[in-house]
């Protein structure tokens, strides 16, 4: 449904040129919920705005529903208002001089297609009902809470039943509890309509829970695209590994194709083909895969570590363990009787380790 090819954009800032996008390629299938994830300045919002037509890229092509909407090389540019999309802005952009009803009805009353009055009323009611705001139609838009404004913005974006929906960090201005609730609702609503969605966020938990596919970006480039499971369990690069979820990193040296020397001993983990034996590598393991238990009994061969800090989170506990001079973070479900200063057995399953070459 959305096709982005070789997109490039740079800005002129006070300190020189900023390359916001360095050749982005992305295909979003119909009905797919695709999340652009990355730190600030990575280019995700710029990509979204290029698709919307609010930014004009320097190079590259954008196709929406099979139509070419942007190509500087071929001198094609379709203005935003002709692209038949819906967009939710980070600030919601609710028009203060209109009521809720008028805000949501605006694309229908002022847009390109003419609708009959009854048709408009029906569609607006349906849209408001979908976001559970059907009783607030006559309220002036300035009289709403943040969460309500966000839902009005969503209703407005979907009232024309567009083919694609663009969302620019729509949940970042809400408090934590509301954010979690809205996350669930958002996915339900977009899936029930079946609209193709491109969603921008810097929150990796949001990305993992919402997306059919997650696209991790940094410094104007796409580092990895894939289902949330793949991005989390098999990160393609060191940056993705550390950006998505927590990760432990240990420096090591590759000895053979499946052996790495490290301060924690020799670890039997698969080394990527591009890394030559003897090269420096980084080993990575997720905190939830670090098994830790009290050092009551146990064989001599067990790895022993000392607990240096403990954070109780309610449903889990985060422990910092020092093993052979290396600090590891371990995540345990529930609570543990281990306390700070205690000795603990640390089990690091070989198949859970990932190896990355040092050249990022």
């Amino acid at each position: 449904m959305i096709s982005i090819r070789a997109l490039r954009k740079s800005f002129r800032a006070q300190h020189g040129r900023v390359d916001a996008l360095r050749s982005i390629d992305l295909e979003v299938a119909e009905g797919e919920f695709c999340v652009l994830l990355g730190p600030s300045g990575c280019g995700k919002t710029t990509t979204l705005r290029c698709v919307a037509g609010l930014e004009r890229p320097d190079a590259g092509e954008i196709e929406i529903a099979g139509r070419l909407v942007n190509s500087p090389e071929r001198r094609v540019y379709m203005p935003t208002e002709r692209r038949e999309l819906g967009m939710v802005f980070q600030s919601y952009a609710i028009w203060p001089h209109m009521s809720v009803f008028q805000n949501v009805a605006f694309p229908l009353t002022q847009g390109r297609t003419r609708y009959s009055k009854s048709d408009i009323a029906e569609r607006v009611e349906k849209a408001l009902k979908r976001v559970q705001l059907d009783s607030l139609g006559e309220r002036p838009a300035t009289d709403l809470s943040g969460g309500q404004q966000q839902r009005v913005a969503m209703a407005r974006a979907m009232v024309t039943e567009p083919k694609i929906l663009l969302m620019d960090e729509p949940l970042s201005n809400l408090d934590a509890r509301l954010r979690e609730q809205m996350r669930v609702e958002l996915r339900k609503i977009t899936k029930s309509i079946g609209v193709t969605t491109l969603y921008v966020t810097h929150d990796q938990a949001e990305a993992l829970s919402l997306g059919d596919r997650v696209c991790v970006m940094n410094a104007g480039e796409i580092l990895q695209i894939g289902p949330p499971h793949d991005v989390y369990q098999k990160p393609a690069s060191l940056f993705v590994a550390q950006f998505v979820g927590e990760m432990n990193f240990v420096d090591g040296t590759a000895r053979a194709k499946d052996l790495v020397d490290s301060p924690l001993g020799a670890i039997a983990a698969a080394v990527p083909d591009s890394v030559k034996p003897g090269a420096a590598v980084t080993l990575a393991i997720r905190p939830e895969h670090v098994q830790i238990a009290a050092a009551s009994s146990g064989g001599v061969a067990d790895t022993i570590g000392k607990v240096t800090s403990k954070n109780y989170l309610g449903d889990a506990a985060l422990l910092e363990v020092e093993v052979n001079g290396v600090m590891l973070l371990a995540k345990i479900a529930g609570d543990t009787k281990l306390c700070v200063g205690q000795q603990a057995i640390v089990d690091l399953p070989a198949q859970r380790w990932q190896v990355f070459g040092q050249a990022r």
Partner: protein
Amino acid sequence: MKVESRTESTVAAWDGWRWFLPQRVSVFATGLSLFLLLLIGLPVLMVVLMSLRTGFPGETVPYTLENFSSVYSEPRTYEVLLNTLCFAVSSVCITLLITVPLVWILMRTDVPFKKTIYVLLTIGILIPVFLRTIAWILLLSPRIGLINKWLQQLFALSEPPFNLYSIAGMAFVQGISFVPGAFFMLAAAYRSMDPSLEEAAYTSGVGKLRTFLKINIPITLPAIAGVMVYLFMTAIAVFEVPAIIGLPARIHVLSSLIFTSTTPSTGLPDYGMAGAYGAIMLLLGLVLAYLYVRLVKQGKKYTVITGRGYRPREISLGRWRWPALAFVFCYLCIEVFVPFAVLMWASILPYLQLPSADAFANLTLKHYREIPQHVGPQPFINTLILMLAVPTLTMILSVLVSWVVIRTQVSFRGLLDTLAFIPHAVPGILMAVGLAYLGLAYRDIFPIYGTILIIIIAHTINWIAYGTRTTNSVMIQVHRELEEAGRVAGASSARVLWKIVLPLIAAGVLNSWVWIGMLSYREVTMALTLYTRGNVVISTVVWQFWGSGWVPQVAALGVILILFAAVVVGAVRLVLSRIGEIGAAS
């Protein structure tokens, strides 16, 4: 030891009868409010008093309404009111016709040379209104105007084509003079409109024109309306243009009528009538001020400050950039280049004439050389005193008022803020007339009449409203927690103000200090109304020269005034930019 004794004294301060004493801050705030009330209220009270008395100031006469009845029964009153309204409405129309496109061109398009244009716009403010008026008279007066003479020569006309001595002419010069101020007010309002409101319309499928009509205009309308009302308020009260152009042509507006009632060229001053007219003006001013405040409140509801930093996409003009530039250039000519050039030209000739071989043969700098002997040192000294004393007094008061209004929890701080804003609703000429009456009628209590002090007081009252607006906005930006950290550390309120707040707002305060100094320097309405031989300032000297028909001397003095202002403002800007923070241009 030390800690214990401090604890002891704090406990002791709050027990027993001392509990009922008002806090130090409240006492201070009350004192400040009373002082302001006196300062601002007395002249206004005088105007009301004046209108209810006949005879000379100081005479004990019974209160009477006969001034009002004679004012209302005279047909001239209604003619003057009509003139005032026509003049005010036309001026505002001209201003908006130029300012709105100007703001749009400079803020939403990719017109080139933006920085230079902004600088030139600021220079426009440096040319005092009376000098610009004089310059345009030298160009468009039917008798001596250079443009008229040139066109008559060129096309062999029998009648001069342009006559500046009309309400249209007055509105033209006044309208032009309002543009720089109106521009910065509109630009500020424009900048606080959230660009995503427009973008949301585009993504809803709404085209550019429709978005402009349905989104941009309704949202910026309160701001534009606010500027309109503000300008209208000022246009009703201004004096310089109606006096210089209107009086010789016997076209009176309220302000010039009040002036001629108190300082007639022949006959005795009639403070009673002046008061009656003044009361009308006062009422109008207060009503408009109320309207303005309501509009500003409404406008505030519509402004959303985005944290993002995305500017709305600049509209590329393409071929249209040349007409746009031409428009801006034309405006700058009318506002800045042409008046200055005319004044320069007139100052180096023995008498005003068109450029010709003859004229070039007669070029001379003698008018500049003769200034010291014609003018003497006193006006310069007085003006210098004004430029130093007025901003200092005004800014001290403004900082104190703002601090109470923004930073304390004193219950009547809203009233104090309104009190500081009231002078804005009172026309300058009325304040001056009220002060003059106060000085004359109660000269035993307030022996200020005839001294430079009375002008200093008049100017201070006039610009407290402006001063407090700027100190308010600067102080709001100093986060409350910075002060609270100071209190937690043990510093008293006064110390916190001195050591924490003041250094942080210094740049903004300094900017306004310079600005008010500049306004004081080129102010002529109040200086003229309160003029006596003892408190001559440069602007009154120029006025007198003009009244005597000494055109080249006026021009020479005018050129010096403008250049001096440019140098001072330029130097201060340079210094301030080194300090780091540059406040807004107006």
